[in-house]
């Protein structure tokens, strides 16, 4: 069973957000990294770019597959995890900690309400697995 921390918000594209004031720290979920397997490259966004909710913002490459990462919220990229350039495997090892991908200064608190909480995300994953 995937690790789904209670204090985070989730998207259907398997991104997570941890709010720190007006800044959302974002990454991909434990479920996503498990599905992708060994991550070998993360293409990070540029700092200061403005991005809309649901827009493609980063790329995660595993040994076998390439996967887009979407912005869970509208805002401006304020920081990126440059350590992933040399150690992309941190996304596998610690997806909610050292494997964070970017931080976004959010514009619209209402968008947070659209994201899933841990319980909803767990049910979402379960429904996806049943479909398989």
């Amino acid at each position, binding site marked *: 069973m995937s690790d789904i921390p209670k204090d985070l918000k989730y998207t259907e594209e398997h991104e997570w957000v941890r709010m720190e004031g007006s800044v959302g720290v974002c990454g991909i979920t434990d479920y996503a990294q498990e599905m992708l397997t060994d991550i*070998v490259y993360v*293409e990070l966004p540029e700092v200061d770019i403005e991005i809309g909710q649901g827009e493609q913002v980063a790329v995660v490459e595993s*040994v076998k597959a*390439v996967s887009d990462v979407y912005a869970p919220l509208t805002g401006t990229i304020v920081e990126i995890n440059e350590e992933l350039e040399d150690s992309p495997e941190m996304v596998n090892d610690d997806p909610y900690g050292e494997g964070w991908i970017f931080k976004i200064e959010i514009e619209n608190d209402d968008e947070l309400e659209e994201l899933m909480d841990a319980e909803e995300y767990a049910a979402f994953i379960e429904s996806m697995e049943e479909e398989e």
Partner: protein
Amino acid sequence: MKHTALHSEHIRLGAKMVEFSGWEMPVLYSSIIEEHNATRERAGIFDICHMGEFIVKGPNAASLLSGLIPTDINRLEPSKAMYSCLVNERGGTVDDLFIYMRDVDDFFLVVNASRKDTDLAWMRGHAPSSGVEIVDVSDETAKIDVQGPMSPDIMKAVFPDAGSEGLRRFYSLETTLDGETVMLSMTGYTGERGYELYMPVSASVSVWNRLLDAGKPFGLVPVGLGARDTLRLEAGYSLYGHELTEEISPVEAGLGWLVNSKDSHIGRDVLTSQKERGAPREIVCLRMRDRGVPRDGYPVARDGEEIGVITSGGFSPTFKVGIALALVKRGSVGVGERLSVMMRGRPRDAEIVPRPLYAYNG
């Protein structure tokens, strides 16, 4: 979806299963990179039961085969195997396969799971009305591979015959285990010294588990389709549906060395002409200089002009960089030259390198 006889063993070993050519197969057990490295450094064991096997026998067996493949069948002798391909009239590839000569009129063929039915119809469609029997034994034949530098020690622990001198590269022998006949062959598709084993399905679980147990002290691990693909890509081996298709000739795929038969065979004129004058396209091997992983279907360009496409690409666990095979216009690039791989619309720098990236370690 079809299951191999080893399905419950894979589940027990915690494999992640995926659909592949109609079969539910393990893609990985722990991690593609770990399984890849274990095979390169120690040994890996693979369930390859999904592949197709045919027996072609009778006084006309050799002549049927020599009419279907561009490779000289006379290079075989009993117990010897060779890699070749079935070719269509246009020189395209119907399938690539291994042919084991068991006796002068008795051949054992191993074909791709996705092409088995096509191959069978193709061969039967070209067979003479008598003097040859083509039997599909895929359902009753299990195949397990043991590959890697420690594989001889592991094999000898289970099959004492594996140490015999007769079992050298591209040769096979029959032995028994618990009364079941097992064919051991020193062949494989990983770039490592290794073995492919053929046995009745009823013997497969026992053989699998005995090899796993015997291999423990040598660091043997089960390996899924994910690492099987990264291993063969590093070794520069062709994969049907990628480097080889009905539209790609073996000469274009870099397998011109298979075209050496003096016998009349399907596609002969096209292939000999391609070999002498050059084929329109060629497969080249790429190593990324920029970050990023080349994937199947990505265009490749030179000086802004698109000249071909990636046929197989991925991340190389050995070299820790993106690598690929690409089908390009012949003569457009040589070893040491640069190409751009278009990754999601952005050009990334790659270098043409000699094929294979990883030389056979036998």
